[in-house]
């Protein structure tokens, strides 16, 4: 390897393909996430965002193509490279029979976080996300938002270098959502790279340095919001208008009329 890991992008997806039977979920994606960058992955339901994220995390194997983490192939050293990643899934399937604290402690142990450091970090996060007082309750009794907070703490407890957030703000109360957004920005300034998927385009617009719009398994466009506006020929418009135009779903008015008949 000629390039040093520091100069390599945090994530690089090279010509990734993935099919489920006849359905081509991801078709030849090329994507780069630089150090300290927040990349928003946008797209309608079923566009391949979650599949892409799962391939980044090694949960799914691409049919072809390669995922590189800091220049190293994910397929060659999955366990070591996974230690650099943190992940908040769209719908966290946590071990509901564990308490919130037990789950976070388990995840921290898997990442090899030393106990002393673990205690301090977990306490900070628990307090910050207002989970203190509920830490010894079984996760099965948590609300959706509380589960999401546990998933977020679990993703951050080992100080990952790359964060993969799949609809991470789902179910969070306004204070916690704001806190997580600010935390994401702060982490990015500290050099953490963040791959962020959301359906709330205002969040993407305010949070992301770069945005990639996915549609039917391919990336339609990638760049800053200003660059995307230019590409769409909609200067001065919102990201929502750009998104709807690019994904061909700007027939909203007609559909609403049809449904309200």
């Amino acid at each position, binding site marked *: 390897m000629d390039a040093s890991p520091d100069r390599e992008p945090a994530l690089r997806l090279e010509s990734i393909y993935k099919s489920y039977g006849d359905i081509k979920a991801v078709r030849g994606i090329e994507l780069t996430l630089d150090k300290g960058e927040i990349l928003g992955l946008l797209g309608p339901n079923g566009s391949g965002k979650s599949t892409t994220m799962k391939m980044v995390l090694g*949960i799914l194997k691409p049919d072809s193509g390669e995922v590189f983490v800091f220049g190293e192939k994910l397929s060659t050293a999955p366990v070591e490279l996974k230690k650099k990643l943190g992940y908040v899934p769209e719908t966290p399937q946590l071990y509901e029979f564990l308490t919130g604290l037990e789950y976070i402690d388990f995840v921290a142990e898997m990442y090899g976080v030393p106990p002393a450091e673990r205690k301090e970090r977990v306490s900070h996060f628990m307090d910050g996300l207002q989970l203190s007082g509920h830490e010894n309750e079984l996760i099965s009794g948590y609300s959706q938002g509380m589960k999401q907070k546990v998933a977020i703490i679990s993703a951050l407890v080992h100080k990952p270098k790359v964060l993969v957030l799949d609809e991470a703000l789902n179910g969070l109360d306004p204070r916690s959502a704001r806190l997580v957004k600010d935390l994401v920005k702060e982490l990015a300034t500290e050099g953490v790279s963040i791959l962020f998927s959301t359906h709330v385009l205002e969040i993407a617009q305010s949070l992301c340095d770069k945005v990639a719009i996915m549609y039917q398994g391919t990336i339609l466009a990638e760049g800053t919001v200003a660059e995307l506006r230019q590409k769409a020929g909609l200067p001065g418009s919102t990201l929502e208008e750009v998104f709807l135009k690019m994904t061909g779903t700007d027939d909203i008015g007609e559909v609403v009329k049809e449904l309200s008949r």
Partner: protein
Amino acid sequence: MARLGKIYAIAVVLAKSQLRSGRSGRAGGSIFRDPAVLALIDGACFAACAVVGYAVVGVISLLPPAQGAQVATALAEGLVFVPAMIPSVVLVAGVLFELSASSKFASSDSVNWLPVTQAEYVIASTLSIAYSYSVVPSAILGLTLWPSVKLGYGGTWVEVLLLSCVSLVYGGAIVEVLRAAINRVSTVVMKRARRGALVLRLAVTIGVILVLQIIFNFVFLIDLVSRFTSALNFAEFLPVLWASLAVKASLVGDAAQSAVYFAATLVFAAGILWVAVIVRAKYWSPTPSRVTVTRGAYAPRTRSRFGLSLLGLGPTEVALVKKDLKGLARRRELLQYFSIPFVLAIVFLLQISFNPALSGGSPGSAKVPSVVYQLPIWFVGGLFGLIISSISFGQEQRSAGLLYSLPLTAHQVLRAKLFVSLLLAMFAAVSVFVIVTAFTRPTPLVAAENFVVAVAITTQEVCIGTAFGAKFPDFQERPRPRFVDPIGIIVMVIVGMAVMVLTALPSILGDALSAFPAFQPQIQPLFLVSLAFAVAVIGLSYSWANREVKKLFVEFRG
């Protein structure tokens, strides 16, 4: 390289999943929510069984020397088969309780994205399975401790103890292999089979479970081997029996041969574990698939295609029945429940067709008591009815909230659930009845009697299972969902078995006292008492189930 700390942490988490089922609340404070409780149960079970074993020795000492020697021989034979029996038990329990991870969970389980190697996960999961079922060898070893010491087999008993631990571990590893195989089946079939995917997946899953059940069923293997040659001469080629050969060698004082078979058992166990790691690595998680069931245009039916309404079910109940039947056939986590009657029936069929003593003629001409032939009918129909009905409420999982928010009555839900369980359990019971009747060729009167008892047992068990399922539902979605609270399962199985024995008592007594024709006239009326008992059990269970379903409605509707 596997790290012990990680393996221990994962094993603890998986063991906790076997214990914690409360809907919410604090985890601390209760010993019953800590995996250590399993060790306590093992210890208590061992001690209780050791006391029983001690009492047995007392009884043996009162017997005449000739009979005492027979008991000693029986004990020695028992010790020989303990290590071979344990993997079979773990595999059966594994099929029932360990393979219920849904595709959604299996593919998005936290361990998939955590930095955990396949070997670490498989070893941890195997240890957790072994720990969960350690009560089985604990009981057997407790029971055999004192008789073994008293009869001079103390050293062999220690060897049985060690081999039982090894067998327990490789039994757990076989379950892991089965889990990965089912993942693979699911992925391949769903990818390629299109419309027939669901039926094909059911068939292949049953096939996979069946093959593994047969490969590791030592009774079947001995039957198979004895068809061709002397079982003991051929056993050295069957790794499943190596542990038994080690014990056998120890019993006759051949320490060298015992050590060789002991070592071979260790190698075999390591091999199974290695295979489990390999298949887990290859089929780490099932790939989620989209399955198009029908391409036809949406056309709501005005009448049920299967004439369910003719059976007294209203349109709402028919809709609920169809939903549950589709769920049973389509949900991966319910497939093993669906496969139980097929597996039990086919294993039994293979055993009686391979075993000359069992298939050699009518029950009267064989040495086997007639009642043995009825056991599969009672067990397949009854036990399956009990299990399938007990999960009928818990399997709704998160959708339960939606179901109970619909404009339904408790009575409608109960009738629909009962109908589905009865339909499947009766199908299983009648299938086995037909097989057994074809093999044993009883008189029409005996066949009719057997049929009535089978129907009575199956109906009762379904009603009991439904009541317990409604009283102790476990709606939680987790990597290995359980659908019924463990306490509920234990009490339900005890009650279900007791009811089964009481209902079948006239048949058991009739068989046991067949040598005394004078008693037969007194036994015949007992069938009527048994049927009256069955009607009472059905009525009471139905009424209890109805009350519990009403409580579920109150709970969900707040």
